[in-house]
């Protein structure tokens, strides 16, 4: 386990909220995915995906839509 899942989710939700200038989840989720791809260590993306596999419903809709756009999780 890398960075604790709770913390990753909190960070991912903060990213989502701050990129959500519109209600169009398509636009927002693409920005969120791009951000996570550019700036997160792949181990963190992987851990977020694993968490989402278990608890997808607890995530905000735009973040959920971003997950399939994440590049390779682990290595």
């Amino acid at each position, binding site marked *: 386990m890398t960075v604790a899942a709770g913390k990753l989710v909190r960070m991912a939700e903060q990213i989502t909220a*701050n990129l959500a200038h519109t209600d169009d989840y398509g636009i927002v989720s693409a920005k969120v995915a791009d951000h996570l791809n550019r700036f997160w260590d792949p181990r963190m993306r992987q851990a977020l995906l694993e968490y989402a596999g278990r608890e997808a419903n607890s995530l905000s809709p735009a973040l959920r839509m971003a997950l399939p756009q994440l590049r390779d999780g682990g290595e």
Partner: protein
Amino acid sequence: MPMSLYYNVGAESDLGTPAPDPGAATVSLKIDGIPIAVPGGASVLRAAALAGVGVPKLCATEDLAAFGSCRLCLVEIEGRKGYPASCTTLVEAGMEVRTQTPRLAELRRNVMELYISDHPLDCLTCSANGDCELQDMAGAVGLREVRYGYEGANHLDKPKDQSAPYFAFDPAKCIVCSRCVRACEEQQGTYALTIGGRGFASEVMASQNEPFAASECVSCGACVKACPTATLMEKSVVAHGQPERAVITTCAYCGVGCSFRAELQGDRLVRMVPDRNGKANHGHSCVKGRFAFGYATHKDRVTSPMIRDSIDQPWRKVGWAQAIDTAAQRLRGIQERWGRKAIGGVTSSRCTNEEVYVVQKFVRAALGNNNVDTCARVCHSPTGYGLKTTLGESAGTQNFDSVMQTDVILLVGANPTEAHPVFASLMKRRLSQGAQLIVVDPRAIDLVDSPHVRAQFHLQLKPGTNVAVINALAHTVIDEGLEDEAFIRSRCEWDAYQTWRAFISEPRNSPEALAEAIGAPAAQLRAAARLYAKAGNAAIYYGLGVTEHSQGSTMVLGIANLAMATGNLGREGVGVNPLRGQNNVQGACDMGSFPHEFSGYRHLSDAVVRGKFEADWGVQLDPKPGYRIPNMFDAAIAGEFKGLYVQGEDFAQSDPDTQHIYAALSAMECVIVQDLFLNETAKFAHIFLPGCSFLEKDGTFTNAERRISPVRKVMAPLTGLDEWRITCRLSTAMGYPMDYRHPSEIMDEIARLTPNFQGLSYELLNEVGSVQWPCNAAAPEGTPLMHVQEFVRGKGYFAPTPYVPTEERSTARYPLLLTTGRVLSQYNVGAQTRRTEAVAYHREDRLEMHPADAEVRGIVDGSWVGVKSRAGETVLRAKVTDRVQPGVLYTTFHHPESGANVITTDNSDWATNCPEYKVTAVQAYPVSKPSEWQEMFRRFAVKQERLAAPVAAGGAGASLAPAATGRKEGLETAKAES
């Protein structure tokens, strides 16, 4: 020629009066028959100096406007009557000036005679002997006798004022030339000095005739440099005598990056004098760079490498070879057991570009991962993100001098008089010429209302509402049709602008909708927006009050949007300017210290860029980002990050949520700290590699205006090993050889691999002094102003900036908001400044609290206050003041035992994880004893001190006692009293 040991320079020249404004037509004249052409607006005195003719002078100096009081610089001018003062007479075409005639000689001798008759004749024992303009002038005019006798009324028995920590004032030697008074006004802008009395009774006095230490003086030293006699003199010169040689180098404290003459006797640094040719500071300085250099030779400096197996064991002194082998073995061992990615490194913005560059190279090439980050993570990482996204380059747009063309300054979350003093002086000069000022800050900083400067608007927002403010300002600009559409159409992405425009026009972004959240009236927000938008030239300057928030990056985007929308980019007097905290924050970021990018801010995933590095470095590089500092700590606690190489950084004091950091550091198997002192983080270290002070290095620093300035060695490393060599030897020991012979070769590599640095070399720096990047074929001597024709990214990008309030909100349990900052005399975690006389100014961190909040809690000024957040609890002494608003607390974090970061939380900027130092919800209550954390801190400090004791013997020792003990004693006294 590389910069190398003892790059000595001669004495500083003084042309007598300042250079005239550039651009004036040339004027030809003759001085003592010598023809010379000078720019119009120059004084005759300056023209003479340029012609190589020295005219005697006392009240004139190149740093100050001509004053014309001493009458020593008299000349004769063909066709004019009398003997005009050459310092106040401007050149005219065809003038014929005579500087040496029998009559002039007689007049000058008379003037000197009067001065000398009221001056002590202790030249041989005077501290200024050899560096006294009065002495020189007496010689120059051939003074041989004094007819008035020395018995008459005089000032010779006036007492000395030794109250200021770094300089002495000996009024008996004063000639009342008023250079000091003018320096304090013109250069520093503090107005602490006046000439009191009249005629014979006139004398220099500080404030209302108080001792310097009790006056408004901020010890910048400008008056000391200006004084032509021994009246104002550095105590270090009084103690050690006049320096023999000088080396030009760069201050290692703040992001202004002042250029200095380090003046020495042999290897002893006698004084630091600001360099008149320094392009960032033009001969000015602040108390830190000018005087606070004693830490470099402080007894706490550790000069020998040390190792231990666990942090419960005593340190053992070892040689360099053993220390480096041990470090390499342990790091390799961790990688074998836990994987390639289980270790990383952190670069320091206090180190040189070259030192930073080799550390990030070491991580990427020798460790084979991208777990490298820098302390800018915790200060200006949102600047990098925000300005790169909107403008295309992660840096400020202007040079400092640009502020002299500004009509309106919008100052957001920055306190330049404390944190960037030399730039603050420039800003004050512009404001006193009539530019207007808008301050956005929760606290009434000095610039809001000080002598000769008053802000038109102080938007006293609640902490955490920056984005609301910038949105309200931008909304007003659009709502009232104040945007610069021509600029937007030609310079920015039109579609993105339309999206942003629709967003910012929404009612939720109006001043009326946001006023309550912000805590400032809508009308004031609108008026401030109008002032900025209609200014002509409006410039934004901002500091950590912008970045250190959970929406720090959004705020930087918002700042850039506002500047683009009003056309305030791409010329003199405008722009977006981050004021960087530490000396080399800009450089550390430029050098590729972030886990996702190479030098010059190029993402790892760019295959072309990566290919260039792979070819040059001869290794395969990982194309995916590594951990940021907070990720490293989280991963350490989760048990999968095990080793860290820390260059000159002190997380255990400077980073938020101290207890979390203690836990993370304790969880690692190998922490390697490279620093001057056994700092707080070193208490958790297994290997200590002693670093060098800036006086012992060759290299470069890059200041807040992208200016790369040389740092030159003035003495050999006390540790016996250059800091960049430590990293290179470690890398070599780990199987990736680095064999540079000199830092200039590291710079050559940086230039080879980084387009913005392409034209840079030590030869160029030696030639022109300093260079602002980009420096390349298109701009061979650098780039003072960026984005002139087009933005670096091509078209400017408007990024929408939704206002997402921080999760750190005041609640019933934690009803107050704590924000943090710094003071002038101390620097960051204070590891250096606490080890200088500067402790006299700031012995402890105090908690500022509004009288109303204090009263309901039964807290009085000076009493002990417990402060508790969801992260932790500490105890500080109260300072009851209405500088802060009700509901807001403020403190600094210069002393470790204050534990200010025990209470700051792990909340951070959404885009960059820059910690939210500026907002913590807390409760405060009166207490009589230190917090549990402080007790623990003290026990731990005492234990670590004991573990360092065996190596402390023999001078090159280690002491872990906090350098300033005032606060400790204070606590003890308080306990005794209660």
